[in-house]
């Protein structure tokens, strides 16, 4: 093969890739990866529409969207943070779509422009082989027994961890929450990054408990044989619904709507259940404790979202880089 042929084939493959873009859906998803891969495969098998997935943490996904603002790529976003959907709707970036399959989704998990795919809850994850006893409530982890044994996902990188902080601020009060955080810091809790970064050290036993882990990853690993226990604290926890939405900029609105409808179909919601999330539809059985079985903190989330920067600043002030 000579240079010309090579260049020609390179150019051909680039243009092919570019033209293929028009007939496919692009979904940006904040996990779980296996779920979105299954959903994409099932949808393609059913409809013949190919789906390209970009999988990352909520922070990475939002960053990519922002970087691509001038030249939007994504048709659909499945975020792990409800507030991102509220934000994007307020900016006028979303396409209205009320799925016919959403009738069994509770009111507070849907809107005209977005709807939950599934719901996770925040929990403590405890390594059964560890030297410490199983904690019962958030505040236990500030006890001396848990010194050096606790990790927490970074609320700046994990939407769910941010939600937990706001839930605690609402239920326990501002002062009590920040003083708990300070105690945790004094107890040498580490904040290594997004969710799995906080969980991985607990699996091998480097640390013993995660403060505020997204439950479905841990439930999946438990089912996979890891010696861990997912503990929902007595004083209550928060849920993190995962909203799906379609961008106004999409070139294939009908296919995008079909994808949302598919995720909310029986088959789609069963896939959601298999990844240990609570399905958004209440009529699809879950493989895990559901909303009615959890003690949830009820509060006005929107009020806290407006204070996002402030809250993250206070968090950073406690756990900031201080080496």
């Amino acid at each position: 093969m000579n240079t010309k042929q090579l260049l020609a084939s390179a150019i051909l493959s680039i243009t092919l890739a570019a033209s293929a873009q028009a007939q496919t859906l692009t979904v940006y998803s904040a996990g779980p990866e296996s779920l979105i891969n299954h959903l994409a495969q099932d949808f393609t098998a059913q409809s013949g529409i190919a789906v390209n997935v970009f999988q990352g943490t909520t922070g990475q996904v939002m960053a990519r969207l922002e970087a691509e603002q001038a030249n939007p790529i994504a048709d659909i976003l499945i975020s792990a943070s409800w507030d991102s959907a509220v934000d994007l709707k307020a900016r006028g970036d979303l396409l209205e779509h009320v799925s016919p399959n959403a009738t069994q989704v509770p009111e507070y998990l849907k809107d005209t422009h977005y709807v939950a795919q599934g719901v996770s809850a925040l929990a403590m994850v405890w390594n059964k082989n560890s030297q410490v006893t199983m904690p019962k409530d958030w505040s236990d982890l500030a006890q001396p027994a848990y010194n050096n044994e606790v990790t927490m996902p970074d609320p700046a990188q994990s939407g769910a961890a941010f939600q937990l902080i706001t839930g605690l601020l609402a239920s326990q009060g501002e002062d009590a929450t920040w003083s708990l955080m300070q105690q945790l810091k004094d107890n040498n809790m580490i904040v290594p990054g997004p969710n799995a970064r906080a969980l991985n050290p607990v699996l091998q036993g480097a640390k013993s408990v995660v403060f505020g882990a997204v439950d479905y990853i841990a439930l999946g690993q438990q089912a996979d044989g890891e010696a861990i226990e997912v503990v929902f604290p007595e004083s209550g926890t928060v849920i993190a619904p995962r909203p799906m939405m379609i961008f106004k900029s999409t070139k294939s609105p009908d296919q995008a709507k079909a994808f949302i409808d598919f995720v909310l179909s029986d088959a789609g919601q069963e896939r959601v259940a298999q990844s240990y999330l609570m399905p958004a539809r209440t009529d699809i059985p879950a493989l895990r404790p559901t909303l009615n079985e959890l003690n949830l903190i009820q509060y006005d989330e929107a009020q806290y979202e407006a204070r996002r920067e402030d809250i993250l600043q206070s968090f950073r002030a406690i756990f900031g880089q201080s080496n």
Partner: protein
Amino acid sequence: MRLSAYTMQGVMLATAGILLLLVGLPLLYIVLQAIFPDVSRGSWAQPFSVFIPTLKDPELAHLLGNTLKLGLAVVLGSALLAIPLGALRALAKVPGAAIWDVVFLVPFLIPPYIAALAWMMSLQNRGYLQQLLGFNADAFLFSFWGIAFVMVLNVFPVVYFAISRTLMAVGGRYASVGRVCGAGPWRSFFRISLPLSIPGMAASLLLVFVLTIEEFGTPATLGAQSGYFVLVTGIHERFSDWPLDIPGASVLSLLLVILAMAAFYFQHWLVTRRSYISVTGKPSAIEQIELGRLKWPVFMLFMLVAFISVAVPILAVLATALSSTLSGGLSWSNLSLRHFEALFNNRAGALQALSTSLGLATGAALLTGILGALIGYLVVRAQVKGHKLLDFLSLLPNAMPGIVVAVGLILAWNQTHWPIQVYNTSAMLLLAYTCLLLPYPVRYASASFRQMSENLEAAARVCGAGFVQMFIRVLLPALSPALIVAMLLVFAIASRELVASLMVAPAGLTTVSTFVFGQFEQGSPGLGMAMSVVAIFSTTFLLLVLTLLGRRRLSGEY
């Protein structure tokens, strides 16, 4: 002949065009973005408005300080570790010398982020070390010195090979002259061999410095937990965590480029300031010292370094990949092949990730090979205008860290005004790899052209061959042994590149490295490590092919 000169000028212009597109464009966009914060929205307003605040930001001083500190520590560590080893290897009869040369290439082939994860699994609290021996090095690992330690183990072979080769070249003939003139072995070493090998040593240490300040995987893996952040992690955070700070990321990128360039210019100055022609002389048989009673202690030293830098990380990767669950720890009942089964059952698109990486790495090797051959020829042989620019552009990526290339490519191609869409296609990855790895084939090719006689070309021309025919039929075959080695190197590095891949991979595409990284982020370390095993062993296999080819080349094909 006139026609041929025109052809040559045409080839030269085309090559320069490709280089500008490949290397110049990303850098240009970074500069523009750093100066004009709103340039992506088509506005030239408020030039330098972000520059000053970013430069004044105390966090920047902190990041810059951390980067320099880490770079210096790794240089120091590599010098302490590799200079004695390299000197011993060159000047003394070390048992198993040839084997050590192969073994010390392996740390280079373990992707740094995988090595960092492996060290984490080994040394952290209740890690493999504690499970085996009852103690851990958690506090050490998650500290500045821990990060430096892991990075030294990754890069010290650069210094080891530079030292041992330089000393072999100068230590042979020149030291013999010294000995003949009556100097003892120690005196001839300190007065002749050592001073003559200083440029080679310095050059390799500067390369270590540049590699360290550019490295993303290790600080990203270990730094978060120890609170140690550097420029590269700062750029990555600004560019991939919400809310974005693209102008800030661009300013930091420019700083990093300037740092790397400064290091390269310093190196260039050191090497060219005086003539050290000794190094270009033919390798001569060197009279190596008998170690006598020190033979086995020296052997043990090599053994120890190999164990720590090669065996420990690879064993930790294997242990994790072969453990059914992480919480199960090291026990026979926990031994399982299920992660490999999952891998070969294509869980999470593992097989596509493998084939994507192989395909892209092959593409990058071919592209850089062709470009390298052309550029090498134009720079060394052709009397055409602008060959200096060509030389500069083709070696510029040396001073462009992967993350900077990625940032530049995104800024450049993520625009609506291009006639074809490159952003969000696999072409982005190909562009990134080609840009980053171009210097390898260019160096190998120009070195080869310098050794080749011009008579070959003259003969081809006399026989009536045009430039293209002469290049393909005469020069390329003569060049191929060197070029193939360089292309294999490109292949090996491209197939595991992490940071650019993370940032520019289009939706729906995973490479080996983003797969491994993603599995850790998704909470499936076992699957990630199984993939690492496959990746490391396949590149090591390549290394063996590479050294065999290298041997054949040295034994005199032309």
